[in-house]
């Protein structure tokens, strides 16, 4: 007798649809051209852009931000803002809110047809949104990566230049901003949206419309930040410090508005994830049974929700300075350039943990699967993630150690920064403890997880150097810090993302990623990541500041070494894209139902996953990760006769 047998009254089958009446389909779900999809979104965005531009010029004709430049930032700002609204309206994100606003019932938004066009529509299924995000972040990453290649090309030679200093600094700024925006969403967006409901035994996210909205805002943010290039770029780096920000041309509008737009998406996504995790866990999933990946997403979601509003406000102040002549950041008129630094980093430091925690979550999630043993110190790992999230709000001024702001507070910020290594150390305790007397399977996802522990260690230890104020004097603002955060974000988060993609792709697509190409990809990426960025620690110590187009001639050898490694690192991503194409389309290999023999709940639904995820809401019976334990009960009771046996998975 299982618990599920007692739940015979539960509705089985699709929860979508309203059985009591047939309702008219929303414009977002109608078949054919007469519907709202990405094409209408593009058309509406262009119309919105044009109207906004006209309106801005109408409001402020003849007004130019920089004397005689013909640049009207009011027109530029309104054009982009209206463009974003047009994009969201065109895709259908505003249908339901407007229907409610006018007291009308919203139309049916869940698709009755299941075909490829759902990926180009405002679709509410979290699995569709997850895959949309996969493509979105890969596109983001690819463009940001091309810019990185351009940077390394310029740095091949200190005296012969490929780009003008102007072009170069705009490439650097665009690269930093794009990558930061991408990295914020790279795990929460694709894997968080796709797998959190599955892993907590839910049929949906708490707010499916908000979930879809956060994706379409993310794409709008992508276009806004790229509009900086045709607008002439911006020269401030991703940090956008005022007064350089105030001084810059219209590309800066794209940066400020881009952050505000993408920040809105981040707030929505975080809030949605948090509500889902708190309220939609299956019966029996107590806080002590929540998978660590879900813990990491919860910690990240709290940061997204609480830190991002500060960025939004900061960006808005900058836009107001540029358009209607407020003086938030203008020292001469009573503002302060320190204000931007404070606001930006008050968001910015939680932001870097937004880009680290999901990586820890993936590592903790995958280790037991490939070690075939339970996760060591489960509670310590969730405590570590919550601890990092909390402390991350108290460290932001370590970015400003040499800025002259609050000099007597430096010991405090040094202390809080170093304290963060304690909960971060928890993650290592859990990781290393889980390897102890394991039976490690060296599958591709596991290789990426192991690489994460290697890379992040270097990133973390160098972070302690940066937090020490006397050492910070030498390493602040140089290639040392650049290498440090590439080690944490790329070496940590991006490796975790790759681990997650290789691990979960069989579930998402029903096809295995090719292992041989995967090995090539892993080793190229791991080796050349380290060869690219490790020399940068030395380059930085030897005195090369960040974001320079020229450098001391004696550093050319190291820079060239780093550049050539970076090109091969870039090539490793092409290997990855090739693997995607090869494994999904050229020579697809059908994946077993549970190829890694995971006990995780997400592997226990059918593949392809039905739109309602679980035939019945599962009941969680025990702790997660009870691998290799004789007589351990199954993690979940799925309440179906055909539930796959979790210890000896059936092959599809």
């Amino acid at each position: 007798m299982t618990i599920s047998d007692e739940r015979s009254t539960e509705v089985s089958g699709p929860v979508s649809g309203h059985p009591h009446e047939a309702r008219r389909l929303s414009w977002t779900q109608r078949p054919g051209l007469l519907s709202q999809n990405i094409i209408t979104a593009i058309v509406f965005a262009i119309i919105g852009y044009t109207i906004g531009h006209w309106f801005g010029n109408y409001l402020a004709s003849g007004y130019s931000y920089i004397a005689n430049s013909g640049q009207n930032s009011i027109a530029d700002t309104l054009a982009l803002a209206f463009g974003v609204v047009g994009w969201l309206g065109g895709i259908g994100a505003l249908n339901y809110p407007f229907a409610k606003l006018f007291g009308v019932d919203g139309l049916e938004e869940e698709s009755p047809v299941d075909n490829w066009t759902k990926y180009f529509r405002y679709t509410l299924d979290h699995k569709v949104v997850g895959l949309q995000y996969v493509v979105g972040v890969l596109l983001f990453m690819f463009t940001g990566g091309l810019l990185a290649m351009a940077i390394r090309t310029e740095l091949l030679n200190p005296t012969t230049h490929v780009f003008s200093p102007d072009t170069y600094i705009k490439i650097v700024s665009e690269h930093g901003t794009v990558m930061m925006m991408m990295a914020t969403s790279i795990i929460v967006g694709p894997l968080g949206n796709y797998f959190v409901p599955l892993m907590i035994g839910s049929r949906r996210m708490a707010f499916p419309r908000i979930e879809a909205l956060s994706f379409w805002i993310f794409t709008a943010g992508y276009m806004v930040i790229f509009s900086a290039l045709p607008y002439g770029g911006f020269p401030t780096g991703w940090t956008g410090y005022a007064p350089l920000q105030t001084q810059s041309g219209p590309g800066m509008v794209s940066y400020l508005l881009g952050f505000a737009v993408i920040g809105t998406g981040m707030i929505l996504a975080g809030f949605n994830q948090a509500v889902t995790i708190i309220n939609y866990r299956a019966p029996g999933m107590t806080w002590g049974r929540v998978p660590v990946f879900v813990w990491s997403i919860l910690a990240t979601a709290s940061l997204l929700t609480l830190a991002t509003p500060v960025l939004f406000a900061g960006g808005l102040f900058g836009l107001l300075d540029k358009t209607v002549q407020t003086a938030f950041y203008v020292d001469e008129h009573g503002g302060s350039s320190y204000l931007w630094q404070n606001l930006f980093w008050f968001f910015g430091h939680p932001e870097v943990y937004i880009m680290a925690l999901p990586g820890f979550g993936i590592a903790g999630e995958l280790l037991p699967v490939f070690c075939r043993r339970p996760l060591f110190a489960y509670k310590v790992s969730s405590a570590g993630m919550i601890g990092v999230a909390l402390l991350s709000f108290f460290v932001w001024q370590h970015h400003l150690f040499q800025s002259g702001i609050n000099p007597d507070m430096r010991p405090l910020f040094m202390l809080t920064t170093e304290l963060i290594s304690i909960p971060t150390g928890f993650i290592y305790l859990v990781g290393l403890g889980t390897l102890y007397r394991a039976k490690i399977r060296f599958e591709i996802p596991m290789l990426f997880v192991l690489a994460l522990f290697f890379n992040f260690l270097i990133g973390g230890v160098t972070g302690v150097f940066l937090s020490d104020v006397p050492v910070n004097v030498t390493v602040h603002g140089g290639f040392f810090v650049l290498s440090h955060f590439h080690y944490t974000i790329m070496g940590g988060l991006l490796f975790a993302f790759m681990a997650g993609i290789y691990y979960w792709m069989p579930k998402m697509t029903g096809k295995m990623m090719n292992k041989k190409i995967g090995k090539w990809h892993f080793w190229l990426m791991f080796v050349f990541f380290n060869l690219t960025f490790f020399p940068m620690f030395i380059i930085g110590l030897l005195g090369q500041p960040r974001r320079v187009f020229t450098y001391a001639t004696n550093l050319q050898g190291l820079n060239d070494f780093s550049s050539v490694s970076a090109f091969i690192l870039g090539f490793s991503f092409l290997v990855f894209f090739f693997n995607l194409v090869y494994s999904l389309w050229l020579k697809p290999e059908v994946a077993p139902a549970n190829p890694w023999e995971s006990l995780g709940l997400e592997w226990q639904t059918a593949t392809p996953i039905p739109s309602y995820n679980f035939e019945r809401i599962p009941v969680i019976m025990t702790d997660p990760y009870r691998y290799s334990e004789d007589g351990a009960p199954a993690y979940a009771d799925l309440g179906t006769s055909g539930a796959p046996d979790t210890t000896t998975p059936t092959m599809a």
Partner: protein
Amino acid sequence: MSNQSTNSTGQVHHLRRMTVAWVILSVIGDVLFSIFVAPHVPPGRLTETAAKDQTDFNVLFEMAIPVLFGVWIYLGYSLVVWGDKRNKDAAFSGDAARHNTTTIVSWMAVTTVTVLFLAGFGTYALVVDHGSGGGQGPNPAFAPSGALKAETAALVGKATWAPGSKNVLPVQVIGQQWKFTYRYPTFGGFESSQLVLPADTTIAFNVTSLDVIHSFWAYQLGVKADANPQVNDVAFTTTKDPGNFIVRCSELCGIWHGAMYDSGQVESQSSFETWATTTEAANAANTALLPAFAWTYVPSANGAGGGYYPNTQDPFSKVEVYGSGTKSAA
């Protein structure tokens, strides 16, 4: 379980091996580092500040070596010994594999003690080294003795310095897109594009900017201070022997940020005095056209017409900061 006993003996075995390897390699690593690398670590030993910053870096590095080696040895050992092909034992499982209070508590204790030591050490180094050459804003919390007096005197044009006087020498660094200029209030407030400093002297750099944020990074001096518009960011260093040093801007300040570099010299006290008095005389006509010496300058209210005037209004620029209780008449 049948293999319970072998597991418990095996456990001691594994950790003992790793510990032995860890101790040996860490000691070797630390010794090799201190002999071959530590003396050459940037920023060198041209000033007291640089030397102390270098020592701090080396202390951190020697603490980092055991941490890095510990994790690497553990990782390497696990991958070799506990791979599924080589490890013939069953995977460790059950409650013992999930939780071990001793391990968790000792890990937390060790990391906490290490972190608290690092924070205490960093704070101590920061305080005794008068801010370690970092920018401390207009109200330096950790100023060397005599610095506040010299700063206050400089603002009212009464600072003095002569070879052997042991006085603190205030030097103003003005960042603008895309160069640094230097003013010497002790010598009539002349402005120069050359940065020359006397040996064996405590220097108070007063760093400010006319436009965007720059960062004055005198690499070999161990000095880095952001140049913020309308903020006087003070950093201290004490020079030792004569030598050359590089100055770079280390805060992105626009298109030509990469080209914003410069060099400077530490010279003997007498040749510095000669240079300073000669330049003061040679530049007298220019100095007369400059705004009066102040901690910060703001652009002329006439906008693009150019020109700067000394800022006597800004709260960050008050003379009271330096204890005189009166405002500059500038």
